[in-house]
């Protein structure tokens, strides 16, 4: 027991000193730098390491000795929720299982759990055993109300609650709380709803939508869903151009007459089409022909 302790402590010391001096005696590829049961450096424990005295960062003399791992003292009927009450990284001294993980050492097996970084990196659910979850439920029970006894069949639930909203939550012990699939929410409506009520609702909504609120008059051009040619810069431009081309007098009558002309109508249609439908070769051609006709080219 004592020798084993010494060996582990020497091993741990050797490993630490390896890191300090940047010397990786074990394996330059860093593949299996995990501690193996064979200790290579026991003889050279003091060779390369000059005595730093009491001032070194790892003061060996006053350093506390590492004790036995907890696994040695675990009875079979222990309370596991006390060992792992919350989500914590893997602790090889607290998990009494001979787990192995990682790429096998040459002609060997996957490295053991002692000092195994691979086991520490991955998420674990050691804190969510069935017993632990039962305990959680027991703790939450005071905050819950009873399920209504009348709603014992699915049919009754559908009848009283025709609209159902389903959302999903995802649990994972990882670096991020979020799971993008959790954003999807399903809303279900069954069709055997009260028809009259539905009709009434739709009628009310329809009439409400026609009411003009005071703030609706503040709608700006940028808010409009569709492009309307009246009062647009395009109309103003073309009107001023045509008026200047006409040479005859100004006035409302001239504008009205200009607006009524078929070329102007065509131009208006082409601009509206361009703006509403977006651009394409054909809409550009239509605009081109309209402008040419209008400006007598």
């Amino acid at each position, binding site marked *: 027991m004592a020798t084993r302790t010494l060996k582990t402590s020497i091993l741990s010391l050797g490993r630490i000193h390896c890191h300090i001096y940047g010397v990786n005696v074990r394996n330059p590829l860093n593949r299996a730098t995990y501690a193996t049961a064979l200790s290579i450096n026991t003889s050279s424990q003091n060779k390369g390491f000059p005595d730093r005295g009491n001032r070194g960062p790892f003061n060996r003399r006053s350093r506390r000795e590492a004790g036995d791992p907890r696994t040695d003292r675990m009875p079979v009927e222990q309370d596991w929720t006390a060992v792992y009450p919350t989500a914590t990284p893997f602790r090889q001294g607290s998990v009494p299982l001979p787990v192995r993980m990682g790429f096998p050492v040459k002609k060997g097996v996957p490295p053991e759990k002692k000092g195994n970084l691979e086991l520490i990196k991955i998420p674990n659910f050691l804190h969510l055993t069935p017993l632990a979850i039962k305990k959680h439920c027991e703790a939450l029970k005071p905050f819950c109300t009873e399920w209504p006894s009348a709603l014992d069949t699915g049919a009754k639930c559908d009848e009283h609650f025709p609209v159902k909203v389903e959302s999903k939550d995802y649990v994972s012990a990882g670096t991020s709380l979020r799971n993008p699939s959790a954003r999807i929410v399903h809303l279900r409506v069954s069709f055997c709803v009260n028809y009259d009520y539905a009709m009434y609702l739709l009628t009310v909504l329809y009439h409400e939508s026609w009411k003009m609120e005071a703030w609706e008059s503040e709608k700006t051009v940028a808010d409009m869903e569709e492009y309307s040619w009246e009062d647009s*810069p*395009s109309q103003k431009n073309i009107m001023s*151009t045509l008026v200047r081309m006409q040479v005859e007098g100004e006035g409302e009558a001239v504008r009205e007459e200009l607006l009524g002309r078929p070329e102007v109508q065509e131009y208006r249609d082409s601009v509206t089409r*361009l*703006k509403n439908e977006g*651009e394409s070769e054909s809409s*550009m051609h239509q605009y081109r022909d309209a*402008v040419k006709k209008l*400006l007598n*080219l």
Partner: protein
Amino acid sequence: MALHRLSFRLRQTVAQVRPLHGSGCGQQQEAVGMELETRPETLSIFRTQENDPACQSEQHLGQYYTVPPSHFHTVFPHGLPPRYQQQVKTFNEGCVMVRQPALELISHLKRADYSKPTMRYLLYGVKGSGKTMSLCHTVHYCSTQGWLVLHIPDAHLWVKNCKELLPSSYHASRFDQPIQASNWLRNFRTTNEHFLSKIKLRQRYVWTKRESTEEGRPLGELVDMGVSRVKSSSDVVGAVLKELRLQAGGTEGGFRLAVAVDGVNGLWGRTTLKKEDKSPVAPEELTLVHNLRKMINNDWCGGAVIATLSQTGSLYAPSSAYLPQELLGEEGFDSMDPFVPVPVSLYSEKEFESCYLYYLDRHWLQHPHSRTEEGKKELIFLSNRNPSVLERLCAFL
């Protein structure tokens, strides 16, 4: 002897080429045959001797005409695309292909009524389809017809990469760009030497407490002042544009004004320039852009505005955008409206033939495989008949 061999080789390629041209060929042959007596007939399938843009017509479509060397420095001090300038230096001649968009523009310009408000024409098309070259062709026409040409080679140059941004003395919230303005004035002076002494100023311009330009002085004096006094060059540009706008199409000593802007979508959009407090500069806060926008409005008469859209130098525009509304934006479209959009397409089969024969003639295609039929088909496939892509491909061969 070399010439004989050359013409023999070309005759062979021409013999293959002839079926492609079809019915148009016969007309071309006759017209071209009448014009020239010195050059052998085979060399002029892709060339025309009609070097005056005013006399070119549909029969010259797809053929190259040579810009006289004397015109190069006066008409195009800054307007040509850089790769084309290199090509001109290499081939020792500047040949421009006569294409449909340019011919259409020229015919509009010929028939337009210059007492009406200015017509705006917008050349648009995919990248590399020949918009700038068509613009230069039209500018050449305007210049040979004695118009005053205001050529802005790339409006995007005014909204990006400006090292010095001075606050304007004339208007508090605007910014001046002295270097760009003085460069442009210098080139403007080169292009329009003969107009500078004829046009007289109609207004008095005060630059500083001691300096002013009086009414009635020639425009050349104003331009010289702008070139030498770099600080006020942006305001000089504004004054020049204003004078030209007022005087174009005037009855006494009137001249026609052509405003040729390449990359006009740069005027409405965003800039990459920042003020001292790191807030972005809007285009209308730049004096040069502000004044140019006034020129593009159609509230003056006696000239035309010919513009091209360009995605190549544009800021914050996706590379697949080429249609007017995408590149101009809402504001730009409303300002340009109503304009005549002129689409510039890729080379047609005939135009591709001409280009290919021209490169062969100039010994630009050195690779032996490029002279074969399969080589030509490969070129068609690789370039998709896009003029600039073809030019870059042939540069490797």
